[in-house]
Structure formats: C-alpha cells, structure tokens
C-alpha cells in the first residue's frame, strides 16, 4: 500500500509464530501427538512380556529395544510433518512469506520434536523399569535419547519435505531416512548398553551430540531446498 510501510517481523517473531501455530494444532488434535508415544510405550512394555522375565536377558536387550522403538515412533509421525500444510496450501504461504524458508523449516522441526520427541525422552525412564535397567543408566539414556530425537526430527524433515508431493511416500521416506538414522541408533543403543555395564559412555554421548549439532546446522537448509523441489 502507499502510506507508511508497516515493519517486517523479525526472525524471532517468525520462528515463534510457526512454533506457536504447530503447537496449537497439536493441542487441537491430541491423537496425532499421542500415537507415537503409545507406540513407543506399547513396544517397550510388550517386549519383556514376550521374551520372559530373566533379568539378564532383559538388561541385555533393553537398550536396543528402547532405541528401536523410539526410532520407529519418531518415523511414524514424520510422514505428516508437511503433509497438511501441503494439502491446504499453507506451504505456499510459508514459501511466499518474507521470512527465510530454512528458519520456518527449523521451526517446524523444532515443534515436531517438542510434540513427538520430548515426550519419548520423558517417559523413557518409566519404560527402562520394564527392562530392569539399572538406575545409573537412566540419565545417560535420557541424554542420548534427547540428542537422538532432535537429530531424527531434523533429518526426518528433509525426507518429509522430499516426499510431501508424492502419494503415500511413507515407505520412501523411511528408506531415505534410515541410513541417516543408523549412526544415531547404533551409538544411542550402544551407549546405553555401556552405561548398564558401568563402562565409559562419554565417547558415545559426544558423538551423538556432534551428530545432533551437524543436523541442527545443515538440515533446515536441506529441508528448505527439498520443499522448493516438492512444491512446484
């Protein structure tokens, strides 16, 4: 318009706006949020029932099962990350906004983690009980799961962005993301297992932290580029 120019919102306002919107949407549809959490909890509680109550066996398998369940739970919710925005045209509005697209992509990943990743971290101590994991592992497990779920939300957003225009891209999404998620799974499960036997865990934690930082720095840009391709 003519007249005085209204001011462009700054980056923080843009980030806050998208995080706030996605959290509000999650609040209005709690089912979408609770699904991955239920999946995580069910796999982790059913497994000990199926394998038998031997403490030795449970402690051996526990870290691996918990991590696989967390990984799959995270993958489960990734598919819908950009889907509704794509379908109702919000994605166009995001791409045509005055905010940088990587910032908005980061905002979406961040709220995805808040809604889908953080709850997994928070309930994991309870589930560790079902495997009779020693108390000293709980801290390490929560720490590694925190880094792991953040990495998965960020890396997963690249795959979700690439497959958003495809019909039923779920299988493809998993194929794209799994290779990137492997290091997280291997180091995550192994570090928790080491903690259970009272071994040194620092190396694994450092690796996961570094991987998380790498994803934090690069994934939003890759996601933005992928969105541009998918949303033609």
């Amino acid at each position, binding site marked *: 318009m003519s007249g005085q120019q209204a001011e462009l919102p700054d980056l923080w306002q843009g*980030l806050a706006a998208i995080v*706030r919107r996605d959290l509000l*949407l999650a609040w209005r549809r709690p089912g979408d949020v609770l699904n991955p959490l239920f999946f995580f909890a069910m796999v982790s509680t059913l497994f000990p029932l199926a394998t038998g109550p031997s403490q030795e066996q449970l402690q051996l398998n526990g870290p691996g099962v918990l991590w696989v369940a967390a990984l799959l739970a995270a993958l489960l919710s990734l598919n819908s990350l950009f889907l509704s925005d794509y379908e*109702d045209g*919000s994605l166009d509005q995001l791409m045509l906004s005055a905010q940088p697209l990587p910032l908005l992509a980061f905002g979406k990943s961040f709220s995805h983690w808040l809604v889908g990743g953080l709850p997994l971290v928070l309930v994991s101590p309870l589930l560790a009980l079902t495997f009779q994991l020693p108390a000293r592992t709980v801290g390490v497990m929560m720490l590694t799961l925190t880094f792991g779920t953040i990495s998965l939300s960020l890396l997963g957003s690249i795959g979700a962005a690439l497959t958003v225009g495809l019909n039923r891209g779920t299988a493809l999404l998993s194929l794209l993301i799994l290779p990137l998620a492997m290091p997280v799974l291997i180091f995550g499960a192994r570090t928790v297992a080491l903690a259970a036997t009272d071994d040194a865990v620092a190396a694994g934690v450092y690796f996961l932290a570094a991987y998380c930082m790498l994803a934090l720095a690069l994934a939003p840009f890759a996601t933005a580029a992928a969105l541009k391709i998918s949303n033609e």
Partner: protein
Amino acid sequence: MTALLQADDLTLFRGDRCLFQGLRFALDAGELLWIEGPNGSGKTSLLRAMAGLIELETGNIMWNGTNAIRHRQRFHGNLAWMAHKIGLKGDLTLLDNLRFESGLRATDWSRLDAILKRLSLSKLTALPLRSLSAGQQRRVTLARMLLADASLWLMDEPFTNLDTAGRDLVTKIVVEHLAAGGMAVVASHQAMQIDAPVRRVLLT
C-alpha cells in the same frame, strides 16, 4: 522509466508441454494484470512462476529494478497470495490464523476490526475455521490480504465460492487497492468488470 513489475521472455514447460514461450509483460502501480485463458492453459502455473514457486525455463522477473527470484525476500515481503487452496488451518480459529500471518510478513493490525467488519467476519473470530462455509473461508483469505501490507496481489480465481455480494466486494477491494497505488495480478477465466487500468495476458 521501467515498470515496477517487469517480466521478460518467460518460458515454462510442464512435462513435455510448453505452456508459454517468450512471454513478456509489465505492470505499474495502480494497474491490474488479467491472465485469461481456458482451463488447463497454464494460468495458475504462470502465477506460481511469477511468485517464484515454480522455476522458469527462461526469463526474468524484475521487481522494482531487482531480480525478484534472486532477491526473494524483498519481493515476497511485498506480495500477497490467494489461490484455490486457502492456506489456512481448519483447526485454528480465524484470529489464530490471521495472527500467524503477522509472523510471516508485515501486517497492519490497527485495521483488523475494520477489515473483519467489512467482510462480515466480525462475529466468527473465535470459531475454528473448519466450521465456516467455503465462501466465508474465502473471505478470510481476503482479510489476510488486506491485513498484509503488500503492494502486489497475486490472485488465482478469486471469485470461486463467493456469492454475488462477495464477488462485488472482491472487485471493489481490488479497485481500492489499485487506486491506493497497489498492483494486482488476477488469473481468471471469468471476465472482470473493473473500473481500473487493465493489462491482459492471454494464454492458449
């Protein structure tokens, strides 16, 4: 003196089909560009390419003397978009939807009440958008455009789902926008009776 919005030598293919080739047009403050053509002739694609959503095969779009695609942010800060897909969240209230917009681009909230009143949306602000009719949802996209402090409006079939009063309102709002020095690009297969300088692009 070059025009504010200038497009040169635009070419776009979708698959093997050439939608347009060597297309050029210019648009200045207060003018409307009407993209006409039958269904499937590439009106939406041209609009999306102008906005930078689709990559052009060849050609440049210049906004205010700078390349619109390369200086994306400056261009998009001046642009408001309205298309078939409304780009609003059905689960959120009307007000939440508009509030989100204020994080994305410059908006003038002092006008909110007047805009909502004009579009007969004042009483619906606290309802989830899902419960509004298609025409009312369409009006919300209009409210979003008016709220945004954008000089260039890109509108894809703006009359869809609107009743006669709604259509008249759209026409009137666009005329006012043009009179205030704004610009609008409208893709529509319907003829527009509009009292403003109109340029045309005919796609076949």
